[in-house]
């Protein structure tokens, strides 16, 4: 068996193990889903009228704000769901089973790859659910072409991959699952200070750079552009650069920690 097919088969085995965990103990995934759902409903039904008036230059309808906020909420869903990856990686590392894997002739990377692929699949399922809820409450991206839909899906997947690798690194670095979960909290907080809920240029001047120079804002702006036809500008490239950079960073960080001698 070649090195590649060994890697694929071992990683597939690890992936099935992680999916089995997620299926059998869905409480963590469901808990993590609650937050973006609550935010969506809160911002649309409670803050929606005021927000619409704010972004639409007065007299806008609530549906305008639904259109504005949904791409942001989809990205938030990614940020909050990957926390599950940090926690489950950390749980794995504190258990003896990983030590067993390390002493077996399996492809070294398969443990982390299994976690990453499993987490990306879970994130995409969560995003699809949020998307369905958004449609149900009036989100209508009717102008998007099939190609734009495909690009939007690709962007969501790429962003999920990037944040998952970072979360896996946090899971490796945290001394226990709780600490790893706390370490991953910025992934929930970062979108709150992005252009998810209000446009960056309506924020106070001193704050705008904080909103602008972080991964969520360009990713959200690109998604908006793809689904709703707003101006994308440089955001597309910036978003892809963030995704590639974070993926590379998270990958290097995670594998370096994994290859270190365990305690």
């Amino acid at each position, binding site marked *: 068996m070649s090195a590649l097919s060994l890697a694929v088969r071992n990683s597939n085995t690890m992936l099935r193990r992680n999916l089995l965990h997620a299926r059998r103990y869905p409480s963590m995934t469901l808990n993590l889903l609650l937050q973006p759902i609550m935010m969506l409903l809160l911002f649309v039904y409670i803050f929606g009228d005021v927000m619409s008036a704010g972004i639409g230059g007065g007299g806008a309808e609530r549906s305008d704000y639904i259109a504005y906020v949904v791409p942001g909420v989809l990205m938030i869903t990614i940020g909050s769901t990957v926390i599950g990856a940090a926690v489950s990686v950390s749980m794995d590392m504190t258990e003896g089973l990983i030590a*067993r894997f390390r002493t077996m002739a399996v492809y070294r990377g398969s443990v982390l790859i299994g976690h990453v692929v499993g987490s990306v699949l879970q994130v995409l399922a969560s995003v699809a659910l949020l998307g369905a809820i958004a449609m149900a409450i009036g989100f209508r991206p009717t102008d998007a072409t099939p190609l734009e839909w495909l690009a939007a899906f690709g962007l969501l997947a790429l962003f999920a991959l990037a944040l998952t690798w970072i979360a896996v690194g946090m899971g490796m670095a945290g001394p226990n699952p709780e600490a790893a979960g706390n370490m991953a909290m910025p992934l929930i907080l970062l979108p709150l200070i992005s252009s998810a809920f209000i446009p960056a240029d309506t924020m106070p001047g001193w704050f705008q750079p904080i909103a602008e120079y972080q991964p969520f804002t360009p990713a959200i702006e690109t998604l908006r552009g793809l689904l709703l036809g707003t101006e994308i500008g440089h955001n597309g490239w910036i978003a892809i650069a963030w995704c590639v950079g974070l993926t590379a960073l998270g990958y290097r960080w995670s594998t370096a920690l994994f290859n270190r001698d365990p305690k």
Partner: protein
Amino acid sequence: MTTTTSHSLAIAAKGLRKAYGDKTVLDGIDLAVPAGTVFSLLGPNGAGKTTAVKILSTLITADVGDLRVGGHDLAADPQAVRAAIGVTGQFSAVDGLMTGEENMLLMADLHLLSRSEGRRTVAELLERFDLVEAAKKPVATYSGGMKRRLDIAMTLVGNPRIIFLDEPTTGLDPRSRHNMWGIIRELVSGGVTVFLTTQHLEEADELADRIAVLSDGKIDAEGSADELKRLIPGGHVRLRFADPAAYQSAAVALREATRDDEALSLQIPSDGSQRELRSILDWLDSAGIEADELTVHTPDLDDVFFTLTGPANAPSQPKENVR
């Protein structure tokens, strides 16, 4: 570089050294385990037993040392070593969220067995380790003994020729411990090499062909259980008195006995045979000495252990077999 002797050695280590910061855990130890034998590393807590297993099983790297396991160099080709070994660590390496059967099938899958081959191997091992009834239950609900059995069964899925067992019976009840011993003997009869660490001297005595006593990162003695027992002074009969006056008169009468004034006890050298015991009893009767307690002490690995691992480890009272 392969020497003629290392062919028949399952595990060979020369000058194995490992330190964490300025704390030396293993201070240049040599090990040679012939294929098909049971080797036991015996030592108190913190002696470095687990570190030795972790290094030899490729989990962590040694600082220095020429190490070969299954004929492969540990530093140069760890994957080849991994293909030859099975490891059951001190803490259970099972997936608590899955069932016993799922754990076993996971192992079969990682060993690249075909589906039917995997199912057959798993069914056999579950049967052999008495886990058929529990197979469909989550491992989190298993007892300690069941988890240990599953742990070893998982280690055996790949049919390893060299097995590392780090304190395999720690935390098991006496029945489970004896079952584990039976399992280990069975493995060895199938030609498997077993590297066992234990704190139970009885366990090393029962199972091991060769025993090395590890203390403070150094091997203090190595040999068969009998060889090690020969290293320390022979047995004795111990007489204990409640009454200081009776003790004094007995001590005067039995001049060759070793006195322990604080414990009010006397030790008479003896091999513990029926004949010697009778002559001592006759002699005590004729001298009119009546001890409150008489114990026969035969040398066992405990003595070796406490003698070799230093007085700091010795209990205030040596273990005695009351007859």
